[in-house]
């Protein structure tokens, strides 16, 4: 249409108050009719300068901060930070602690992907039904977290050298129930969305990322795997004993929004497999290595990363032998995954931009920190 009729481009703000930005995130989109011709990201509405605050607290005191970055997957964030500190200080975690960490991280991945898949379906316009179904399953996982750590969202459960508490007796039946309920739920979502003509029409070929671009733009997680790159830190650089578990890396075909969606669905299946194996082989023994309260790691630096639900979550710590980190840097996956947002949205319509943003699965707390 724009070729025939003279039109003036104008700027439309998607966000910061918008139902589909999943938080206070803003895209300044220049549109020509419905077509996006330029997109600029504006962020920082939620900036709390955690990296600065963390430099004044001890290593253990920093764990609750990591909850508040990616508030939809606090367990994974705790885990990444604890791994970095352990790498810095050379602390070994007992096998039971590792297994509990794996179970918790995978449960968190399930919960987070529930949110991602549901919200993505909501962005394509499926009026809340998928998101409600996803929330129904997510509740069960949050209940497990509540039983284990006392909190549902910001769990603060991992500790340097292990986990905070041992598992309660209710834990195992609850997890077994989740494992029983999840595969049918994933099939249900697949039936509702993956084969739906309208859903396919909306997501297929939208926001295509070539593998070269995905690599060059430093993307990670489902974004990278959707483009066909088999890269999963759990396989490539196993931590917490992930090498003992048998699971596969799902990868997409052409890197569009649809591929990212099905990759997330399949990752949930794989997570169920991992939890099953970890729960069956849950070792006894201590769940935590005792570490001094005021931990003073030796001078040096460490970069530890995990596969969080959104991608590679890295913590870069520099120690000067003090009780608090000299430098505390988070490599936030959803922040860096946004690098390619402009390339994916420009040329599509406003509705496509929303779908692309939903397929990236951002958490604004992590972008702004």
């Amino acid at each position: 249409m724009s070729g025939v009729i003279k039109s003036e481009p104008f700027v439309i703000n998607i966000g910061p108050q918008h139902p589909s930005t999943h938080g206070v995130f803003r895209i300044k989109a220049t549109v020509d009719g419905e077509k996006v011709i330029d997109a600029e990201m504006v962020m920082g509405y939620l900036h709390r300068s955690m990296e600065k605050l963390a430099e004044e607290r001890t290593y253990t005191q920093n764990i609750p901060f990591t909850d508040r970055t990616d508030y939809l997957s606090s367990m994974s964030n705790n885990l990444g930070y604890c791994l970095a500190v352990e790498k810095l200080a050379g602390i070994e975690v007992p096998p039971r602690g590792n297994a509990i960490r794996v179970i918790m991280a995978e449960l968190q991945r399930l919960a987070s992907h529930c949110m991602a898949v549901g919200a993505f379906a909501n962005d394509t316009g499926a009026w809340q039904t998928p998101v409600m179904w996803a929330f129904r399953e997510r509740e069960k996982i949050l209940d497990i977290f509540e039983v284990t750590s006392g909190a549902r969202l910001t769990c603060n459960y991992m500790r340097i050298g292990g986990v905070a508490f041992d598992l309660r007796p209710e834990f195992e039946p609850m997890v077994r129930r989740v494992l029983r309920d999840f595969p049918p739920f994933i099939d249900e979502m697949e039936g509702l969305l993956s084969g739906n003509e309208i859903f396919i029409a909306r997501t297929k070929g939208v926001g295509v990322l070539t593998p070269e671009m995905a690599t060059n733009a430093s993307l990670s997680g489902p974004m990278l795997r959707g483009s066909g790159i088999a890269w999963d830190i759990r396989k490539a650089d196993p931590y917490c004993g992930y090498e003992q578990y048998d699971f596969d890396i799902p990868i997409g075909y052409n890197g569009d929004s649809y591929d990212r969606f099905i990759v997330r669905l399949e990752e949930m299946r794989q997570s169920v497999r991992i939890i099953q194996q970890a729960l069956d082989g849950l070792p006894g023994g201590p769940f935590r290595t005792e570490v001094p309260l005021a931990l003073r790691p030796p001078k040096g630096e460490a970069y530890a990363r995990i596969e969080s639900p959104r991608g590679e979550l890295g913590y870069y710590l520099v120690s000067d032998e003090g009780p608090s980190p000299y430098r505390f840097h988070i490599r936030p996956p959803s922040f860096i995954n946004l690098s390619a947002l402009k390339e994916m949205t420009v040329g599509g319509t406003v509705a496509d931009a929303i779908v692309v943003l939903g397929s990236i699965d951002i958490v604004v707390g992590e972008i702004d920190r």
Partner: protein
Amino acid sequence: MTRELTGSEAAALAEALVPGSVDRTTETACYLKPDRLVETLRALRDDPEANLVHLTNLCGVDYWDHFEVVYHIQSFEKNHLACFKVEAWDREKPEVPSVTPVFHGAWMQECEAYDLFGIQFAGHPNLYRILLWEGYPGWPLRKDFLAMPGGLQPGLGEFAGVARRQEPPVKVIE
């Protein structure tokens, strides 16, 4: 298991491709000369042996007398991770070359390092304060920026409250 290259291994890779690019090495990291940085990283990215294609992490560190910018770059096929660093010694106006032309994913992280440390990335296409607003006084992650309200701020020589009263911190955008 990802092989984390030691400083000397990374230096050997870099030196083989771009002679004279390495400044010094430590146990974990390889310090590159700032003027050879972009060239070296581009060569490392394109070389099939090094294959360092994925810039995972980029961040700045303040060591009181100088700044360091840390690059963690990894290879998918070789499954190794190398840590490169560059130093910037100018306290007032630290400057390192931007690697955005080599790694597109660096642009947001460089913006963040500029925003929080005040490190200028020469050659960056659009360096702006990505998290804080334009006109924010000082660079919050520098060590001489105190987190408590009223603390001294770098480059200003004044207290935060005073500085904010003098000029409106929020610039009205159009």
